[in-house]
């Protein structure tokens, strides 16, 4: 049996083992061109249409750009804002090539419209690589139209005209005109071929590469209503929805008639739902005139559940099954280079280690919510979603409506981390509005959120590796125990066979065994990588120590000569990995400082979501086992430009700290088919007192710019665990870190 890589599915955006064909072609072109400018455009050509923002006296040049007579420029931001700074960053690309001053720019959230904007989503750190070319060219195209309009007005050749800060200039005659004054004329001109419009020489950039604060931050700090949960519709009711605590369970009976008598309750009903854990599941809806009253009624809710088969599953049971796989050959082979068995038998040293990481939740701070208004055959939704297109599809399917009758308004999201790539909450809100016959705001409480997530799957890795007499890695054997059935992984439970050191060890085997899982899983920030970096980069660190080598140098030696190896996107470039490792060695003072007793430095790198990050953690471990992280150094290579440096630093710091929070604090426990943890007491994101300073550096390389939502996170976890080993001699092979094992 061969394992099938997960093909591209809109519902599973960034846990894909294979990227979509067009994307791969796009990147391949980039590599072939030596990382220079790309002419392949992966969004539909610009569609001329009246933008929503167009007001009287404003002219729309293309789907992104509208210019008013007063020379203010409104730019549409196509993707959902989840805190990644996209609402500021994508318009920066357009404004740069449009050649306007940032102070002229107003930004509006674009509507969901694939014809105008192509795919609109927040996931997989894909916004930068997918939009770097198209957004700049949309700006350049609008600029070309404005030049053409001014040139026609002056009766001079367009080639004699230049632009600066929102004006067209004709140097030889000394004339100039604002964009606003020629925008109407420009809007009547044909849209140029995006592939042929002239773009700036990067050395002339005035916006790309300049720190630009978050566009909506002035509203955020005043508490203005920007988020999904803040949306109001006249006549709106409030809903809560109780699903079976056991995943996949169904309602047998519920005391809805009692609840209907309670103060403020307008309706209470059983939702039959289906069996797709990503869609509308069975449960009980309570609709009231306030969310508080709906919640109070829920306390009186009595349901008899048919819990179903998943009630037999538990974390303890999974661990037992995984342990049983340990002594067996893997069910499926992922890769087999050389002769691992022979190399292990001839090795000077054989190193064995078992690694494990638990399920974890996303827990964005804004709980799942959605406001829906079903009116006959039409439904309008206001949703904090990362993935509005598939959300619309799910709602249409759930209500039996045509997709054209489902209007999705994207709101700002109070965090995403991958949770809002799923659209279950949208289907629930739409269904409840339909049955209640009123606009409804569904708001989950924190326990709903924590106990009905799509979890980062747990995993087990059994390693055996061989070092020769010189400490060189000659054999690598890895048995991954994960979840799935019939040769298909559960969502985000997959492992690629190209992860370093694959390709650099002459004898290497990777295999996987799968156990069935009734718990829904899904992509969590840096899916796959957030767990696999810990496993791979910790075990390599173990091997470096066994070999008696400096761990950082050991990895550099193993990376070898700079070249492209097979991997995500265009592949994994050993030279780029080496570049960030060399830089982090320098900035962290690796090996240069005498550290106190029980203080150590650890290093790790990882290639994820097209970005390269190397990180060093310095940590002190008290005699009581408590860990204090003194400092983190993070070095990234995300290509030729860091588009918005202030946001990039913020995102890198947040990603590193998020990873450290997972390592220090986080575990979701399954017991009897349900989640034990219920709130931020038992499942904790990193808190301020745990937040170490994170010093961020970027090295730029001649590669197309790529995203930052994910790549900074994965190496933070093994860098911390490796620092703990350096400080204490204790190897962390299971997460979250058990400080009881670290006592002096």
């Amino acid at each position, binding site marked *: 049996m061969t394992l099938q890589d997960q093909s591209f599915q809109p519902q599973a955006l960034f846990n894909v083992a294979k990227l979509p064909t067009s994307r791969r072609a796009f990147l391949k072109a980039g590599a072939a061109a030596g990382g220079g400018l790309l002419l392949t455009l992966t969004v539909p050509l610009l569609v001329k249409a009246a933008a929503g923002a167009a007001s009287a006296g404003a002219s729309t040049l293309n789907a992104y750009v509208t210019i008013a007579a007063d020379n203010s420029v409104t730019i549409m931001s196509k993707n959902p804002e989840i805190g990644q700074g996209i609402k500021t960053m994508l318009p920066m690309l357009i404004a740069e090539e449009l050649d306007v001053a940032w102070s002229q720019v107003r930004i509006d959230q674009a509507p969901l419209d694939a014809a105008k904007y192509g795919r609109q989503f927040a996931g997989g750190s894909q916004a930068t690589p997918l939009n770097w070319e198209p957004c700049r060219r949309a700006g350049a195209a609008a600029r070309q139209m404005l030049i053409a309009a001014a040139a026609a007005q002056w009766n001079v050749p367009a080639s004699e005209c230049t632009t600066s800060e929102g004006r067209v200039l004709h140097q030889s005659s000394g004339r100039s005109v604002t964009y606003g004054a020629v925008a109407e004329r420009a809007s009547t001109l044909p849209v140029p071929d995006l592939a042929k419009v002239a773009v700036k020489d990067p050395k002339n950039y005035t916006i790309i590469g300049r720190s630009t*604060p978050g566009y909506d931050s002035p509203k955020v700090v005043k508490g203005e209503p920007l988020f999904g*949960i803040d949306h109001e519709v006249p006549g709106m009711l409030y809903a809560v929805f109780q699903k079976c605590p056991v995943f996949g369970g169904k309602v047998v009976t519920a005391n809805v008639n009692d609840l209907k008598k309670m103060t403020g309750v307008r309706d209470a009903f059983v939702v039959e739902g289906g069996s797709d854990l990503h869609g509308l599941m069975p449960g009980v809806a309570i609709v009231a005139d306030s969310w508080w009253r709906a919640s109070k009624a829920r306390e009186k809710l009595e349901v008899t559940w048919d819990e179903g088969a998943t009630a037999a599953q538990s974390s303890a049971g999974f661990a037992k099954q995984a342990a049983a796989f340990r002594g067996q050959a893997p069910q499926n082979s992922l890769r087999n280079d050389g002769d691992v068995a022979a190399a292990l038998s001839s090795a000077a040293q054989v190193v064995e280690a078992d690694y494990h990481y638990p399920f974890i939740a996303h827990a964005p701070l804004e709980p799942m919510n959605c406001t829906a208004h079903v009116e006959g055959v039409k439904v309008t939704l206001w949703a904090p979603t990362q993935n509005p297109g598939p959300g619309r599809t799910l709602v249409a399917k759930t209500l039996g409506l045509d997709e054209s009758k489902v209007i999705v308004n994207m709101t700002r999201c109070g965090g995403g981390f991958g949770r809002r790539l799923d659209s279950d909450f949208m289907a629930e809100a739409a269904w409840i509005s339909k049955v209640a016959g009123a606009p409804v705001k569904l708001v989950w409480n924190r326990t709903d959120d924590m106990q009905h997530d799509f979890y980062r799957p747990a995993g087990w890795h059994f390693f055996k590796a061989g070092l020769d007499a010189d400490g060189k890695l000659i054999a690598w054997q890895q048995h991954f125990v994960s979840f799935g059935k019939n040769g298909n992984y559960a969502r985000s439970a997959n492992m690629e066979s190209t992860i370093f050191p694959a390709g650099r060890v002459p004898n290497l085997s990777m295999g996987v065994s799968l156990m069935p899982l009734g718990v829904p899983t899904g992509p969590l920030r840096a899916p796959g990588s957030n767990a696999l970096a810990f496993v791979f980069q910790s075990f390599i660190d173990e091997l470096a120590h066994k070999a008696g080598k400096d761990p950082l140098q050991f990895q550099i030696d193993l990376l070898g000569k700079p070249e492209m190896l097979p991997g995500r996107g265009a592949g994994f470039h050993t030279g780029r990995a080496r570049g960030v490792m060399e830089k982090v060695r320098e900035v962290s003072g690796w090996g240069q400082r005498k550290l106190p007793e029980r203080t150590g430095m650890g290093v790790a790198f990882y290639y994820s979501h097209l970005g390269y990050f190397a990180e060093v953690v310095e940590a002190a471990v008290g005699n009581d086992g408590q860990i204090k992280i003194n400092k983190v150094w993070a070095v990234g290579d995300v290509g030729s430009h860091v588009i918005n440096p202030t946001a990039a630093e913020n995102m890198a710091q947040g990603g590193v700290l998020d990873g450290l929070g997972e390592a220090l604090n986080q575990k979701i426990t399954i017991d009897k088919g349900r989640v034990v943890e219920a709130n931020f007491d038992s499942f904790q994101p990193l808190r301020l007192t745990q*937040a170490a300073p994170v010093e961020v550096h970027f090295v730029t390389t001649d590669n197309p710019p790529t995203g930052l939502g994910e790549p900074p996170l994965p190496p933070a976890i093994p860098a911390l665990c490796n620092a703990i080993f350096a400080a204490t001699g204790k190897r962390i092979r299971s997460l979250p870190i058990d400080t009881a094992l670290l006592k002096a």
Partner: protein
Amino acid sequence: MHYALTINGKSHDVDVDADTPLLWVLRDAVKLKGTKFGCGAGLCGACTVHIGGQAVRACQTAVSDVGNHAVTTIEGIGETAVGARLQKAWLAVDVVQCGYCQAGQIMTAAALLTQNKSPSDADIDAAMDGNICRCATYSRIRQAIKQAASGADFGANGQPRKGA
């Protein structure tokens, strides 16, 4: 039950159940959406408001317990000198990622700076550890509090800070 509340200097008459948390009164009855729901259990700090100048978790405060005390929310804190300085510092430092927790962070910080004009790192730790930032913008939160406390001139609203 009718309650007369003073919120951000204005009086509001609300008709809600006595056990309704102030959070939901603010959000759904008074329609001030800046105060956020994060956990409903006093564990995350997203709902922090001031009652009589003290930082409290609005999700854990029944409307019947507010009494005659003045309530200040994120929508009103900019009217105070400390609140305005904090909001300005938050923008100058470019703290925000998703922004969902930031109202609660600013309200907690405002209570801290009102009581302690020049907080140490330990003071900031003690005051702010109850406020979760899921995006982990903590180092910038710390920096913005210090900047607001120092009374430094932050320059224009949203002035770019030194890049990474």
